[in-house]
């Protein structure tokens, strides 16, 4: 047994791609070693990465594969021997198996006597197997963007490959890829350690050797070091705290090879910039400079920033670096302030007409046209929800819809596109529009993902739903629907957003998917497609955001997919009942009923409740009675959306259902009896299908 270490040295890999590539390399190396019978199934393995390397260390690798014996079956004995002498078929088989004809065995199979041979495949040496197989695994790693770098374009990879290490125990495995042959030499931090070669004596020394060369190869260790350094540096300012930002910390972790207490700097900016909106300052720091923001004890933004370095330096050096970073930030803030002030020379109201020159989509016209469509749609939906008791400030919604896209003409949004909507909301507020109008504009792009918040106001939600529905309907009208993995206009995300808002907005928005689709387009064919698209996203929402099982989602949506909140409650009720054996039994019975009914229909049977005979079987009568009682209870509970209680009622049918199927044969020879029983089943299935199609529930049995 030996340890195996494999490292690929690269020019800086994009931060966003490192984590998945590290995981994939580990998976591929383990997969290879398992496939080649070089490790046990539970072998210990650990992966590493920095911007300049991906590595994996596997413990307990066998130096040589065990010999494997395999049974081969050949031709039948009848064909293989004529008068006791081997025929060409026997000779050919023996040759293929690599044994002499005399060594062939006979086995008895259901089809008769056949020739067989035991072939022993000699195990290969691990190093040889790895050298032969690993290059394919390296080449197979997925990268979002690849490049060529060698003449003749022999391979593509994320960035040029600079070195490889492959060590099995103390021995080098000469893996070849990208014009390099793996050795035992790795490299440390480019600046802090320099370009001296580092010889690895053993795989297990990897982390330690790199630590000595200013490289923390383990990502989590590096992340924790960075967080500690941030804490430490922030403590130098009384009462200050750095703003948590997991995404940014992750990026910074993947942008650095080293981290220590001297690799984070806290810099300052002039407090006068704090008069700019926090959103703008934080965006400049986070998105453009990758700085963390600092807040004071009250949670307000403080005039400091934190920069994470791929470097460490003494106080003088850190001073230089701090000075440089502060200078860049000052220039950035200056720009932002310039835009902020310049933009406001032309109020949003005057920008409405500029939208005529901003194309939304070639065939769908300008943003001015879009704004008018969205306005009409939003006000229409507002009327609907108002009639259902929701309080909407229609004036604010109207203003918001008209002004919503005007920030696209501002320099600030042109410079910081990620602030679209937010900037409009801030300008609207500064220009004296109502809180509600400004908030709706501010939130109009929410939610941008399944994890994102929904708009904070009814007006914001109506604006966002209308904007997204208009985009979807417009694109569908042009035949630009998403296909497979292609969704260039992010229509799925838009539809997910609509579903999420209908499900989660506070107060609730009583709108159905049909209403949204119907009002977004006058074209019925497009409406049907949009409606189906939204229903498909509801299915996605139930599964991904709500964690509902596949069969539950199917069962619930079969009973209706128009009312999003209702579908969510039904799904949750079904899921909470799943563990109950009574409910499972009843679900199984529903499946049976549906099958019986389907078969009967195929045979042309009639279901006639009037043909019921007087002397019905006791179990049938019992089921009919119970079903009718439970049915009316379920209906009352369903109207009140008390689906949990309703399903508990359904589950109480179990004794009657069991008794019926135990004692009664539905397909009685007497046509009248048969028809009556079928009618009973049909009415049960019908009256209990409002919550979910229980026959879709996958039961354990």
């Amino acid at each position: 047994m030996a340890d195996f270490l494999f490292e690929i040295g690269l020019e800086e890999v994009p931060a966003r791609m490192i984590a998945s590539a590290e995981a994939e390399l580990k998976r591929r190396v383990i997969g290879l070693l398992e496939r080649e019978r070089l490790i046990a199934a539970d072998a210990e393995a650990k992966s590493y990465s920095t911007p300049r390397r991906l590595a994996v260390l596997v413990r307990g690798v066998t130096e040589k594969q065990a010999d494997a014996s395999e049974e081969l079956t050949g031709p039948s004995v009848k064909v293989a021997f004529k008068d006791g002498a081997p025929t060409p078929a026997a000779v050919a088989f023996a040759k293929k198996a690599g044994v002499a004809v005399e060594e062939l065995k006979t086995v008895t199979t259901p089809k008769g006597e056949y020739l067989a041979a035991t072939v022993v495949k000699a195990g290969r040496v691990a190093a040889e197997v790895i050298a032969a197989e690993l290059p394919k695994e390296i080449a197979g790693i997925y990268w979002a963007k690849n490049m060529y770098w060698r003449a003749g374009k022999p391979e593509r990879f994320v960035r040029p490959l600079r070195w490889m290490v492959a060590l099995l125990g103390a021995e080098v495995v000469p893996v070849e890829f990208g014009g390099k042959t793996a050795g035992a030499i790795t490299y440390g931090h480019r600046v802090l350690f320099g370009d001296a070669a580092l010889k690895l004596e053993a795989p297990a020394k990897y982390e330690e050797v790199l630590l000595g060369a200013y490289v923390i190869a383990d990502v989590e260790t590096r992340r924790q070091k960075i967080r500690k350094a941030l804490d430490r540096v922030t403590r130098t300012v009384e009462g200050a705290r750095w703003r948590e930002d997991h995404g940014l910390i992750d990026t910074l972790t993947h942008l650095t090879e080293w981290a220590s207490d001297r690799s984070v700097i806290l810099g300052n900016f002039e407090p006068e910039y704090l008069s700019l909106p926090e959103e703008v300052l934080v965006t400049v720091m986070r998105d453009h400079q990758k700085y963390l923001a600092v807040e004071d004890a009250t949670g307000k933004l403080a005039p400091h920033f934190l920069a994470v370095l791929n470097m460490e330096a003494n106080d003088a050096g850190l001073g230089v670096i701090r000075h440089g970073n502060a200078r860049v930030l000052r220039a950035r803030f200056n720009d932002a302030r310039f835009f902020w002030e310049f933009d406001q020379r032309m109020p949003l109201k005057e920008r409405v007409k500029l939208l005529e020159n901003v194309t939304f989509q070639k065939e769908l016209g300008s943003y001015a046209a879009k704004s008018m469509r969205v306005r009409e749609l939003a006000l229409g939906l507002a009327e609907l929800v108002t009639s259902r008791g929701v309080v909407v400030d229609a004036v604010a919604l109207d203003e918001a819809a008209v002004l919503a896209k005007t920030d696209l003409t501002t320099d600030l949004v042109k410079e910081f596109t990620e602030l679209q909507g937010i900037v409009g909301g801030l300008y609207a507020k500064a220009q004296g529009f109502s809180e509600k109008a400004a908030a709706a504009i501010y939130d109009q792009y929410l939610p941008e993902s399944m994890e994102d918040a929904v708009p904070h106001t009814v007006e914001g939600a109506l604006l966002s739903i209308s904007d997204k529905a208009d985009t979807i309907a417009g694109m569908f009208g042009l035949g630009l629907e998403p296909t497979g993995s292609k969704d260039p206009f992010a229509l799925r995300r838009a539809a997910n957003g609509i579903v999420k808002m209908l499900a989660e907005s506070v107060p609730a928005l009583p709108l159905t998917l049909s209403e949204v689709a119907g009002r977004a387009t006058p074209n019925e064919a497009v409406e049907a497609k949009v409606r189906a698209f939204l229903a498909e996203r509801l299915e996605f929402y139930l599964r991904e955001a709500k964690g509902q099982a596949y069969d539950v989602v199917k069962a619930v949506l079969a009973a209706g997919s128009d009312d999003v909140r209702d579908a969510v409650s039904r799904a949750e009720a079904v899921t909470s009942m799943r563990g109950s054996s009574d409910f499972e039994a009843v679900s199984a019975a529903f499946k049976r009923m549906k099958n019986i009914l389907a078969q009967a229909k195929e045979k042309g049977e009639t279901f006639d409740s009037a043909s019921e005979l007087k002397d019905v079987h006791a179990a049938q009568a019992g089921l009919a009675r119970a079903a009718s009682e439970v049915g009316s209870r379920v209906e009352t509970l369903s109207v009140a959306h008390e689906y949990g209680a309703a399903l508990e009622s359904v589950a109480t049918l179990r004794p009657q259902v069991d008794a019926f199927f135990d004692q009664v044969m539905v397909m009685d020879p007497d046509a009248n009896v048969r028809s009556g029983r079928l009618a009973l089943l049909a009415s049960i299935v019908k009256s209990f299908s409002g919550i979910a199609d229980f026959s879709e529930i996958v039961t354990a049995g």
Partner: protein
Amino acid sequence: MSETAKKALTFQEMLFRLQRFWAEQGCVLQQPYDVEVGAGTMSPDTFLRVLGPKPVRIAYAQPSRRPADGRYGENPNRLFRHTQLQVILKPPPERIQEIYLESLEALGINLHEHDIKFEEDNWEWPVGGAWGVGWQVMLDGLEITQFTYFQQCGGMDLDPICGEITYGLERIAGFLQDVDSIYDIVWAIEPDTGRKVTYGEMRLAEEEQFSAYSFDYAEVPKLWEHLKLYEAECLELLEKARGMDKMDALTLKRFPVLGAYELALKCSHMFNLLDARGAISVTERVGVMARIRTLVVGVAKAYARQGELLAAEPVGELAV
């Protein structure tokens, strides 16, 4: 930064050092191209020389005009015309990153006192059918260089690929001299009087006037007319280029693909002016860009074809 570095490097000395550094790496020092370009990449020394199999090492400072970026000289960080130092290495040497870092040291930047990061930044010029992958090089939070492995140009795969290093000279100078405004950069110092000539002294008037020209004065109908004329002539040349396969050796080598490229560059510049003037609606934009793409990609293809045909000619026949 260290005091010596701050004192030592004027704008022009910085350029000298970089040019000397790259000359020592085997680069031919070329002069700036004398047609308006938006970036050093658009100079034929990059855009056309990256095509084909012939090795190239070349470096040049390229004034780059971006009319829409003009700010009448009022913004301390933005320029209508800035200067790029463009380095082209085909094929890229294996140690290209290390060599690049050495070039920063040549500017007096002590890497042990600074934070350098190579952050993903992929470059693309759709109008030229050109793209590459690479990084923006960040020095203490400042983007000082665009580093690209050029992959495609004129819609054609490059083989070998090409390394392209583009230094933003004003940015680096501002950093080295620690000034908050580009216009305060010291361009040169008169050795006898000690008088400092600033960037502002040399260039502010240009920024003011060209901003005014491109935002306020440029005559839109005339710009469209210029664009049309340049385009028509370029298209005519490209049409003739279709007959290159049948040209005799002399006609072939004299066929002005390079002239066609200048006409395409003129179109690109007219487009930028019209854009700055706010004369191109978003709807039109796509269409005009497609027109220019036809020219630029057409030229690249013709250039590549001409190169192939010339390479196939027996040497003797060329010496007419």
